[in-house]
């Protein structure tokens, strides 16, 4: 299941949605184009289309090799339009090929996440607790930098995380646009919580005036939202993200295995 929505700042600035995602039964791949680049949405969509044409594109063993081969072929294809390396870097690579890649693979025993750039890995452990693993950097490392001479991230590699399925019920991946859900800053979050069918009634251990408690109680309970998120009800999540577009400044992409169908 992949949910993809344009960020509100991109909508008001007339920019396209720069995020993109593809999926198969055993792999999820989300791409988050660099906001500073002019044609990020072109890069993410071009890469995804060509990557999907590769043999065994959703095989975890061949993933890194396939990513490199796809980048190589794009660079090779475009070389003839740019007379030298400097122009190639500045006018094509830096404007098209700077994007985060987060891939999640599912095997019988584990989830494997491979990450190049910034974003979130969201996990739910066997006790039901939801965790947001945040990868954030002042300057995100992008795979495209590997094709720029003398760049800091020329030798940077994919980060790999393995989650044992006996410990983790679910693993989701998301671009950094999902931050408002993580921080509980989605407008109207409370009204969404009202709909929760399994919400436990509040039981106060100390008798105290309701008016005083209401202050604390009215704050959005982000943990209820987290559980709802990991249930993976696609219609609900789409409504939450797209219906509250103004709360999401950046483009949002959320992907997980086994979500409830629409």
């Amino acid at each position, binding site marked *: 299941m992949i949910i993809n929505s344009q960020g509100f700042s991109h909508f008001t600035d007339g920019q396209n949605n720069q995020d993109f995602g593809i999926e198969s039964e055993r792999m999820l791949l989300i791409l988050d184009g660099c906001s500073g680049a002019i044609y990020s949405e072109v890069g993410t969509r071009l890469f995804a289309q060509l990557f999907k044409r590769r043999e065994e594109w959703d095989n975890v063993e061949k993933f890194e090799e396939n990513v490199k081969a796809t980048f190589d072929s794009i660079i090779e294809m475009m070389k003839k339009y740019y007379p030298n390396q400097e122009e190639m870097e500045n006018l094509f690579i830096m404007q098209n090929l700077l994007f985060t890649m987060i891939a999640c693979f599912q095997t019988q025993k584990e989830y494997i996440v491979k990450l190049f750039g910034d974003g979130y890995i969201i996990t739910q452990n066997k006790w039901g*607790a*939801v*965790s947001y693993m945040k990868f954030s950097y002042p300057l995100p490392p992008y795979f495209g930098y590997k094709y720029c001479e003398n760049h800091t991230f020329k030798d940077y590699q994919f980060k790999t995380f393995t989650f044992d399925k006996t410990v983790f019920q679910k693993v989701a991946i998301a671009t950094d646009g999902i931050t408002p859900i*993580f921080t509980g800053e989605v407008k109207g979050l409370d009204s969404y919580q009202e709909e929760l069918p399994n919400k436990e009634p509040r039981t106060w251990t100390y008798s105290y005036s309701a008016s005083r408690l209401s202050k*604390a109680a009215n704050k959005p309970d982000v943990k209820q939202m987290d559980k709802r998120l990991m249930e993976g009800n696609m219609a609900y999540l789409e409504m939450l993200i797209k219906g509250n577009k103004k709360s999401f400044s950046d483009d949002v992409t959320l992907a997980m295995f086994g979500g409830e169908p629409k």
Partner: protein
Amino acid sequence: MSFWKPKKDENKAPKRLPQIPEKEIVLQEEEIFTPTMEKTSQISNAASITLPPYKPTIEKKLTILLIENTLEMAKKVSILNNVRGSIKDGLVCSIYYGGIVWQSAIVDVTSIKDIPVFIKAELGEEACLYDALIHVASLVTQKYQRVEEEKTNKIMINAIEIIGVGSCRDTTSSAQKDFAINCFTKVAQKPQVLSKYYCFKEQDFIEAAQIGFRSIGAISKNY
């Protein structure tokens, strides 16, 4: 043409009120109010009922710092101080875990400088994280949504934030891992309890996610 004429009676001067004969009013001794001893004692009793002073209830947030008290952590004092410095208001309590678990007093954030950064005598390689998690769970249960009376006011802890800093590893706990995580999860899932863990390295994230800290980030911005 005839004019209205007042009647004769109406034109008379008003009648004089009957005059009270001027005489000295001397109150009889019986009439003078002289409170008896009994009455006096009643009055003084009523005045001595002292109402309890009004104590306003102040809602405060409690931040629990869960600090790995190891040599590795001691090399990162500045980062730990930054975490401590980021706590702006409310109450603070530090729980250190190395070979043993040690808890500081709960103080106002303005007094945080009085709390030691580390327990130097205990610095080593050992870390009993699971024991510390059980201690945190017990502390949260004791304090969450409870009202405590102080000299001039009542303090109600309406929110709790647990901030862990370290490698999220355990070497010497006497508690079982599953039991400790279960205890921690029960309190961390309460509505106004938030938990976060700052790891030394990104590879430690998985361990923190196993425990169920909601927000997990790296202590430094190293790539």
